[in-house]
């Protein structure tokens, strides 16, 4: 309680109400590092999930090893290792260039995320009834097409809610790349802190992370709603879903029900 008196509230307020250009760069860095790392994580997770289902043993082994290593070690350690083994100061990606530390940060976060995404995507694929696969086969479809056109679109409904949570996590976890010198939201506050030694910049940055995750929650609700609409007609209105975001985390509760029905609990509400 005593500490609260020592908070430089003026500084908190100025960081919230009157952000400067440097701050916006930092905010933007957090957003794009999170987005790119998450996309990378989804792709790696998908590849690893498909590898796990392969009939060729070594692929399954590699997929398991990947999860074992990257879920079993701290992401902070992974960030340091990746940063240290990637040479150069600027990474040329053809269409554009990235600073080495940003590149290493995105890569480490993405690889780490892929290990978690593999489990989420695997669970999504496993939740689809075997009869769907057989129906595809009986129509002469090959396994790649069945996966792409039949299984994954349905699995998406199961995958998206936890994926949304993963991205929420990613935005916050991305703050760890401050350790390798990437200038993002957290490093920005850290710098203010080192000159003021007041808790104020961290309270302000907490507020900004909250803004980011709240905006994302709304996006997530919209995406989930659109996925659900393509399944059947009667759906909660956007406003009802927005309410659900605040009251129960955006329909995550629906997760367990999907494999057993086409509509889950929204179905009766026409």
């Amino acid at each position: 309680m005593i500490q609260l008196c020592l908070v430089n509230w003026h500084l908190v307020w100025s960081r919230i109400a009157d952000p400067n250009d440097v701050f916006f760069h930092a905010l933007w860095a957090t957003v794009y590092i999170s987005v790119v790392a998450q996309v990378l994580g989804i792709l790696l997770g998908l590849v690893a999930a498909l590898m796990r289902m392969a009939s060729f043993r070594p692929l399954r082994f590699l997929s398991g090893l990947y999860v074992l290593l990257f879920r079993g070690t701290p992401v902070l350690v992974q960030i340091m290792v990746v940063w240290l083994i990637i040479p150069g100061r600027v990474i040329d990606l053809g269409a554009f260039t990235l600073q080495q530390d940003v590149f290493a940060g995105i890569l480490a976060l993405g690889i780490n995320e892929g290990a978690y995404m593999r489990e989420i995507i695997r669970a999504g694929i496993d939740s689809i009834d075997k009869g769907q696969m057989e129906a595809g086969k009986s129509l002469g479809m090959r396994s790649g097409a069945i996966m792409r056109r039949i299984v994954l679109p349905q699995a998406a409904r199961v995958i998206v809610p936890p994926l949304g949570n993963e991205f929420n996590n990613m935005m916050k976890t991305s703050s760890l790349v401050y350790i390798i010198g990437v200038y993002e939201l957290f490093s920005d506050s850290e710098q203010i802190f080192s000159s003021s030694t007041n808790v104020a910049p961290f309270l302000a940055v907490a507020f900004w992370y909250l803004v980011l995750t709240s905006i994302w929650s709304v996006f997530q609700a919209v995406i989930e709603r659109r996925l659900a609409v393509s399944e059947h007609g009667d759906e909660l209105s956007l406003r009802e879903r927005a309410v659900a975001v605040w009251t129960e985390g955006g329909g995550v509760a629906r997760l367990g029900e999907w494999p057993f029905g086409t509509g889950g609990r929204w179905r009766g509400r026409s």
Partner: protein
Amino acid sequence: MTSSPGSFVLQATEVHKRFGRLHILKGVSLDVRPRETVCIIGTSGSGKTTFLRCINHLEKIDSGSIEVNGHPIGYRTKKDRLVEDSERNIARQRTEIGFVFQRFNLFPHKTALENVIEAPVHVRGVAKDQAIAEAETLLTRVGLADKRDVYPGKLSGGQQQRVAIARSLAMKPALMLFDEPTSALDPEVTGEVLDVMEELAHEGTTMIVVTHEMGFAKRAADRVVMMDEGVIIEEGPPEHFFESPTHERTKAFLSKIL
């Protein structure tokens, strides 16, 4: 021994299938001629569903052979040994064989129409306009023209099964397989599905139906086949089969079910 093409749609010879230590099929042989409707009946566990699933290689057989239109299904001979065929070839063979599942297995994320055009467009490469026109004809044929844009979740079981039949027919298969198509349905809607199937039978669709619907077998079948403990124990035209069965197990089964 090869038969002249066209003489049989299905030739199954001495098919054996084991699940681990369970010997499910113990040498099943069945030939089906074009335009013929064959109903397979028998107690549960007699192997009739397994046999049907072997015909389009949803189950691998352990020995024997299955040929559809003269092409071996799922296997080819390589140095005098049977090896499993490539996925590509198996998929191609399956386009000739329609399969209607007990639990429909419609694609829940696609409308009735999208379910029906999926395989013609993405497997056969039919132009979408043409596939849609054909699908509409098929949906009309099963009495569901007005449901073309409805998702399966909004259809009754009987309607879903009729869409599933239309979906299989859309590939214009040489042979239609029905695996207890009405067993998962409420009694009041089995009729609408059986009517569609009966019509198909009378139009000359070559089909094999695993069923417990004896009334349907009597009306629609050209031949009724009784399976018991992994073998075919009796077969014949329905009038003979139901009036004067010879095998004791058939008599016992019929007396229980009729």
